Each structure stands twice: as C-alpha cells, then as structure tokens.
C-alpha cells in the first residue's frame, strides 16, 4: 500500500473519500487499510509541520553529536534508548562516521539546552564527548519548503 502511505505522508488530512477516489478503492477499504497500518505500528502517528518563523514560540532547537562507548551487551541500544527517553529529545539516530548518536533536542532557551547537555547527557557514564549546534533557520523540513516555490505560471488554456 505504498501509494496510500505516500498520500498520508504528504497530507494525512486528505479526506478519506478523496483518497478512495485516487486509489480507486472504496472508502471502507481505505479506512480498513489505514486501521491496519496503525494497528501494526507502521503508522506511528500524525503531526503538523510548523513554520517556526511564523509561529515564534520560545523554542530553541539544537543538534547534538554524541560519542559513546558501546556496551558489551546490547552495543549502543541501551544508552540510545536511555537518552531518547528525555522529553527534550525529539529525534535520536545512530550514525556511521565520526560520532555515534545524532540527537535533535528542543528546549525553551539556550540555557535549558546547556543545562541538558551538562547535567543530563554528559553525566551518563558511556558518553565520551558531545558537540552541540544550534538551529538558526529552517529552509526545508520533512519534504516541505518553508519558503514555498510558487507554482509555475501557465497559459490558461493550451493545446
């Protein structure tokens, strides 16, 4: 059901009737399929993509590179899960290359992020080093442009 997932990823609010027409299915079939994707944990949730330039709440976003010492049992998993549990952590990836975990965190201000790094993150025994980068501006997020490209102008009728 790749086409259905594509549609939902682009706009999860597309009316089910429209989805049914586009996929040439009945509304019941679409509902059943979405329910299945949800119950099997393939679809984890639905979120809005916010333009932070326009919705300026006091939120600071940082990307943190973390080097950790893997454990004998479980490698990186236990530490990564432990770090992921903090509410500030929005995203946590295991990476190849110069560091191990890439964390995206959100907090009220710089001090809160500094506090998180100094008190929570760095104090975990397996964490060897961190490097913190702050977000200044967003150009594209989850496939959506923040400064939209205008639809190309076309003649109103053409052969």
């Amino acid at each position, binding site marked *: 059901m790749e086409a259905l997932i594509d549609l939902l990823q682009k706009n999860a609010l597309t009316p089910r009737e429209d989805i049914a027409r*586009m996929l040439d299915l009945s509304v019941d079939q679409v509902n059943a399929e979405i329910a299945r994707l949800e119950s099997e944990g393939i679809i984890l949730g639905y979120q809005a993509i916010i333009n932070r330039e326009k919705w300026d709440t006091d939120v600071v976003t940082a990307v943190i590179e973390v080097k950790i010492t893997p454990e004998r049992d479980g490698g990186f998993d236990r530490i990564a899960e432990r770090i992921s549990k903090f509410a500030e952590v929005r995203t946590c990836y295991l990476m190849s290359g110069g560091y191990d975990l890439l964390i995206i965190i959100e907090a009220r201000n710089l001090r809160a992020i500094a506090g998180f790094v100094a008190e929570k993150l760095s104090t975990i025994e397996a964490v060897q080093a961190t490097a913190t980068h702050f977000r200044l501006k967003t150009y594209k997020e989850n496939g959506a442009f923040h400064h939209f490209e205008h639809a190309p102008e076309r003649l109103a009728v053409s052969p």
Partner: protein
Amino acid sequence: MSIRIADHVHGIPRSGIRDFFEVVQSMGDVISLGIGEPDFATPWHIREAAIYSLEKGRTGYSSNLGLPRLRRSVSDYVNKQFGVRYEPLSEILISVGVSEAIDIALRALLNPGDEVLYHEPCYVSYAPSVVLAGGVAKPIATHAEDNFALRADAVEAAITPRTKVLMMNFPTNPTGGVMTVPELEKIAALCIKHDLVVLTDEIYSELMYEDAPHTSIAALPGMRERTVLLHGVSKAFAMTGWRIGFACAPKELIEAMMKIHQYAILCAPIMSQEAAIEALDRGEPAMIKMRREYELRRNYIVRGLNDLGLECFKPHGAFYVFPKITSTGLTSREFSMRLLHEKKVAVVPGTAFGASGEGHVRCSYATALAQIKIAVERIGEFVGELKSERAAAA
C-alpha cells in the same frame, strides 16, 4: 496598404483552442482543466544542469543536428524506452519541440497532393502542418467505443493511391487512447503493403499507467526503415518551455529534414539541449514521481465524472480524460462555453481536436488535485442545473 496573406495560409482556420483561450483570459479566477502541459516545474536537477552550463558560458550555436552528446543520450534513451537503436550521428535530429519535427518531416516527405492519414480527435497542429507542407489531410475518426484506439480496418479503408504518410500519436492528446500490440501489428502490415511512411508522435509514451508497457510502431518488424519516431522531453520531464524534441529516422530522411531545419532554425537552443541531456540521462526517478501523481488524479477525475453521468473510460495514458457530454443535450462548444461562463471552469471543446471530437470535452488532469476537486464539484452543479432546466422545459 492592405497586406495580402498567401492563400494557403489564409485558408487555415485559427486553432479552436486559441479563441477559447482568449475568452478564458478575459475572465480571470477560472479553474482551468484546459491546460495541455504538466503543472510541475521542471525537476530541480535538470534546471540546475542548465544553470551550470550557462555558468560555463555554453551559449553558442550547436551543430545543426544538435549536440553530439545529446544525440548519444537520445539514442540510448530511445533504445531503452522503445527497443529501437538509432545511430547518434546520422539518424537523430534535435528539433525545437516535436511540433517543429512534425513540420520538417512532412515538408521533407510530401509532394503537392500527397495524402496524409491521421487519427482524429488529435493534436491541433496535425492537419494544418500537412496543409502547410502541401499535402492533403485525411482524418480517420476514432470512437469512444474503441477507447479512441485506431482500427486497422479504418486505416485500410482510407488508403488511396495518393496516400504517402500515416501520422499517429498514442497515448493520444486529447483522448488518452492507447493502442494494443495486435492492432498495431495489423496497421504496420498495411503500411508495409502500401509503402507508407509513418510519423509516430511518442510525446506521451512515458505517461502510461498501471505499469502498462508501451509499444511504438517503430519497434515492429520491418517498420524502422519507414518510420519517423518523434519524441521530446516536454511532457515526461515537465519541460514544455525548453522546446526540445527529437526525430529518429533513416539517414536519408534525417539528411533531408536537416536541410529545412538548418535554413529555418539553425539549431535548437543550446542551454535547452544541455538540460535535455540531464533529463534523459538522469530524469527517470523524477518522471516516475510525477507519473504516480498523474495516476492518482486520473483515478479521481474519472470516478468523479462518471459519478456525474458524464461517461468516460479510464485512459491508460497521457494526462487527459475525454468525457462524453451528449447526455446534457448540449454540443461540445455550448457545454464548454456555458460551463466557463456559469461556473468558471475551463475545459476544451472536443471539436477543437477535429470534427469527430463533437459530443466530448477534454479535461486535463495535469492540474493540482485541489483544483480538480473543485472543478468536478462545479461541473456536478452545472450538470444538475442543466437537468432541472430540461425537466422544466419538458
């Protein structure tokens, strides 16, 4: 002084789309299903390749036939897409859109009075191009009950001793019709038997849905030597404004077409040729993404229109549906004009594509789904109002 226009030009009617366009232009705020080009901008990596070539200062003429590098890309692409191999340096000509390629192919082939067969409804330029090249345009009507495919028996019935060329365009603008291989084989046999040259306009060939394979008549046995395969980057890669087409044909014909092309045009714009290389070599993923999008919209509009009682088959190719509107009691032109004035939705009357388009309108689904959705709703209101109008009159 009044300037006297040449008789053969004077006799050509203005495109039916042209006058419709002028009405739409004057109105504003219209939702248009009348647009025969992709609504996507050219994929970024293709635009970026053109920018790069401009930065490098590649702004001069190219060889008359087109950049050798592009012709090699065309050769590989055509071989992959259609299974026919053309020699890049002698059997391929880069033109300014397929329209120019059609024009110069006809001019290179026709003597005055030679007849050209083509299926109708069809693209608006076919008949005028034939006439301007001194030929006689002989339309063969295709029908909704055949899903607008061309029937071999209709071709056979239209052949006369003066017939020289058969022009084809599948998937078809405006109907979305496609051909089956057995019927194509029968037509190929007729072309061989009657020694016809085939111009096959393959501009929509990538836009085939449900993973249906596309077969070009050029790929059938005995056809390569009598076929001009015409194609371009406009529709598949959303590059209409770049004006790049190409003609693949036997060497002698390319040579003859080149004479006309070099004196009339010199060469296609070089920056567009550079962009076309990128499109043909690396454009497939972006094309597949756009095609997937068209397919969803097609499904939406076909079901929407059929639910309104405007019968239309689900076309297997291109980005048009061609619903039948005779149940409304209106002609194609009346339907389109009233829909435009009363509901501000533009569709193109079927008759703009030839007399056999009467009773149909062309709706393009190369338009954002949100627009299609509103258009279908408004067409629904319009059809409903027509029905009550007729009930009141009866």
